[in-house]
């Protein structure tokens, strides 16, 4: 079967020589298999040092792999010559956490650079740069000095520069990590627009779960050089399996109340604490609440909320239930098979 993936990593390993003679090599990427499909936004999330920034540099071969294969658009980049790699890289855009713009050039000059590298004529450059500046909303900044721009504007220039040569793939290495929350949102919206309107596949490296929730279609979670969990973003958000994934999800979703929160709630609330996880859109919250009423159990919402991921909403509601133990057990028995529930404390 012909692979449809734009990027396919197979058993990829990247080691860096140890610091000093006789020191063991550092394995930054440890046997990663990954497929990025055409047209999607694929996020790789992990803490610092998880190997995600190294991984993304293997895709455009800024770093050579130690073993394994990296196939981009049907070509194994690990076998390419330096000259062939240069041509490949002209078809892959890249943006960076620190923007990496040339301060010795104006905005215009920065955008002209990749076009000159690609051999585009001056007249064509003129046209293309105007298009790019309009696309990223910086038409009035063409001749501004890079050092006069705000962080968000710099990243917009970075994005425009990465798009200059009409790449099929955009690598975003912590592109929003140096930006404030509002600017982060603007830049993520711009990346979503790049994906939606230009059909460019994006490989998004981040440590911010909110960025994943906002624009990614699929996500892989990395820890210690390995992918520990991956799947569609909604699945990962609603049913995180690996502890690292749970920690990331808990940064944006109030899943189960942490122990200190439970202790604080105990001061003001009696009864048993039960978390209901609404995942399936066909299950109405009213069904669950009706079960409590039927058994004469009173309930109060003490923790959690409704979250939204790509148009799908799901809820994690922790309730304080008061009533006889038998009544509560009977009500919970009614919920079995309807809403997954977890007893948090009693």
């Amino acid at each position, binding site marked *: 079967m012909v692979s449809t993936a734009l990027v396919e990593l197979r058993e990829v390993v990247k080691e860096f020589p140890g610091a000093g003679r006789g020191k063991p090599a550092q394995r930054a990427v440890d046997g990663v298999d990954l497929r990025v499909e055409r047209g999607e936004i694929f996020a790789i999330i992990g803490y610092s040092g998880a190997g995600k920034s190294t991984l993304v540099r293997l895709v*455009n071969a*800024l770093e050579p792999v130690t073993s394994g294969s990296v196939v981009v658009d049907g070509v194994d980049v690990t076998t390419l010559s330096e000259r062939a*790699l*240069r*041509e*490949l*890289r*002209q078809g*892959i855009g*890249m943006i*960076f956490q*620190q923007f*990496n*713009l*040339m*301060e*010795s*050039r*104006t905005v215009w000059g920065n955008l002209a*650079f*990749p076009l000159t*590298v*690609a051999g585009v004529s001056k007249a064509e450059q003129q046209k293309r740069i105007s298009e790019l500046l309009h696309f990223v909303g910086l038409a009035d900044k063409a001749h501004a*000095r890079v050092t006069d721009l705000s962080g968000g504007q710099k990243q917009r220039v970075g994005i425009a*520069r990465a798009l200059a*040569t009409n790449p099929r793939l955009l*690598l975003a290495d912590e592109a929003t990590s140096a930006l404030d929350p509002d600017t982060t949102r603007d830049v993520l919206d711009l990346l979503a627009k790049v994906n939606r309107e230009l059909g460019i596949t994006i490989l998004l490296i981040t440590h911010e779960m909110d960025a994943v929730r906002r624009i990614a279609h699929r996500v892989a979670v990395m820890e210690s050089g390995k992918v520990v969990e991956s799947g569609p973003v909604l699945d990962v958000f609603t049913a995180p399996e690996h502890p690292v994934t749970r920690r990331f999800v808990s940064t944006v979703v109030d899943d189960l109340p942490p122990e200190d929160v439970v202790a604080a709630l105990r001061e003001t609330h009696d009864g048993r604490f039960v978390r209901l996880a609404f995942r399936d859109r066909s299950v109405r919250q009213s069904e669950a609440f009706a079960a409590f009423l039927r058994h004469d159990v009173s309930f109060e919402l003490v923790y959690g909320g409704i979250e939204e991921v790509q148009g799908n909403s799901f809820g994690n509601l922790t309730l304080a239930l008061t009533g006889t133990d038998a009544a509560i057990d009977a009500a919970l028995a009614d919920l079995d098979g309807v809403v997954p529930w977890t007893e948090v404390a009693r």
Partner: protein
Amino acid sequence: MSALASDTRLWDLQPEFWAAAGETVVMASIALVLGGLLGLGLGLGLYLTRKGGLYANRPVFWILNVVVNCFRPIPFVIFIAALQPLARDVVGTGIGIKAATFGITVAAIFGISRIAEQNLVTVSPGVIEAARAMGASRARITLTVLVPEALGPLVLGFTFAFVAIVDMTAIAGVVAGGGLGSFAQRFGFRQFDYLLMWAAILVLVAMVMVIQVAGNLLARRILRR
């Protein structure tokens, strides 16, 4: 004070004084331009071949590093004399302004190479990486990204090096190279003509100041682009 002024030969030696000033200008300018260019080249060699550099090459870096380290500490008054045989081969004479300029230029190359290397190191590695990610060749990155990005600090570095070059021109007398420094020594210091000596010093200070101001202005313009 009046005795000092009346004893001076400064007024009689005016033609020689200005000729010596001209020699200093010639020696210093040639050394600054040639030493600057070749020193930048050597500095680029050091920067590019070092570990993690675009042309990382351990043996080449090692050789360049050792050569620079060996030649830089040699006191110039000895260096210029030791360079005489080479000067005869390259500029055709071991004495005079040509030989002196040759010696100053060679010393300037080694000195400026380190200054250039230090300034190149300040260029963000991320900018170099971005240029690589866009598919630019190493030569293109070196000439159209690396050097332009470092140009402001480089100009300041060259300005700084100019003071050292003027310093070296004062030693040109060792190989009969002339210049204001040796003029001040021969007609001022040795003949107790302090007014003449201070006049020469004043002109040297003025030269350095002019270059310093020009260098600062140029660097500011480049950095403000």
